[in-house]
């Protein structure tokens, strides 16, 4: 299984990189010029995202550095603990939608401290793998096209993070418990 996964992850991108231009070349597409056209657009998009990402990162950074994040993590933690969720894992659920690097660092720390094959280590791995940094994803995607009103997208994103978090805990308890 591991060998197979390693094989896929090392071959997937090289194959795509080789296949797309080759396919296009056989269809008589001027591949290099096409590439440059698209690449220019990629640069413009990256620049357009800057204000959105700076805005979001400033707010999250202030919230985090002030100690407010720790406070809310501790507060909701003691609440969720009543429902039988291991308290060590709860901050991860709260960090996850806000910061990708922050939650990855936290998950890594849990894996290091409790061991990768412990229940908490497995839960942390599953949570990290099955949820995403909703605030970042929304900022980047909507920022890239200049959407100001995301309608219900944020609600749906946060809801699916919550479901993913609960599902990950339940599934781990079921499989490894």
């Amino acid at each position, binding site marked *: 299984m591991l060998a197979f996964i390693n094989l896929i992850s090392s071959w997937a991108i090289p194959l795509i990189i080789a296949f797309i231009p080759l396919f296009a070349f056989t269809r008589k597409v001027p591949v290099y010029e096409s590439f440059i056209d698209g690449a220019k657009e990629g640069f413009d998009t990256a620049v357009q995202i800057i204000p959105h990402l700076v805005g979001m990162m400033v707010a999250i950074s202030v919230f985090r550095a002030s100690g407010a994040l720790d406070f809310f993590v501790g507060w909701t933690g003691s609440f969720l603990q009543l429902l039988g969720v291991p308290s060590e894992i709860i901050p991860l659920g709260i960090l996850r939608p806000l910061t990708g690097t922050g939650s990855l660092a936290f998950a890594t720390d849990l894996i290091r401290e409790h061991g990768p094959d412990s229940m908490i280590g497995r839960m942390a791995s599953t949570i990290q793998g099955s949820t995403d940094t909703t605030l970042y994803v929304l900022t980047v995607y909507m920022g890239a096209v200049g959407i100001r009103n995301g*309608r219900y997208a944020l609600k749906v994103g946060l809801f699916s993070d919550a479901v993913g978090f609960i599902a990950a805990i339940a599934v781990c308890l079921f499989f490894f418990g």
Partner: protein
Amino acid sequence: MINTIWLALILIGFVFAAVSGNVEIVTTAAFEGAKTGVSVCFGLISVLVFWMGMMRIAEDSGLLKKIAKILSPLVTFLFPDVPRDHPALGYILSNMSANLLGLGNAATPMGIKAMQELQTLNPDKDVASPAMCTLLALNTASITLIPTTLIAIRMNYNSASPTDIVGTTLVATFIATVAAILADRWCRRWNLHRDRTPPMKGIPSKPSMKG
């Protein structure tokens, strides 16, 4: 909602810093955050420039349309209001498959490209269209087949079987994705309903500026 969350994050942060007697933390944190934002974007430049170049080749050659055609039943179910032969569908599919394979770096540019194509169909350029919301829902739920980063971290800490979380991740990600799609559908219907409901007699649907 994003306005409220943004303001709340800053204000709550300010109050906490003020109460703990370190108001100056707000200043450092704000500039640190701004720096992070720019450096993340700079990190994205190379990825976006490269993959959007590749995706343009795929589009010009008709490859994206071909992929979209093969998987059209799935996408027409998820995106009923996008025309079947629209290039957006090809990008949506490439975004989904890159997510499935855990190719995070490649998934973002394709998702952005899909958003840009959906924007061409969007009547109100400031407000996300229902199709955009569905795409965002799929991306925030992050359908993953192989959580490569986590497997690598587990190997790093000498796990006896680094991949034994593939199964649990698959189940959890599946549940989260189904929940996201259902929630999206529910909101979409609710939104349509609200937009179409005529204002009740005598009660203006929006507060009027005229006296």
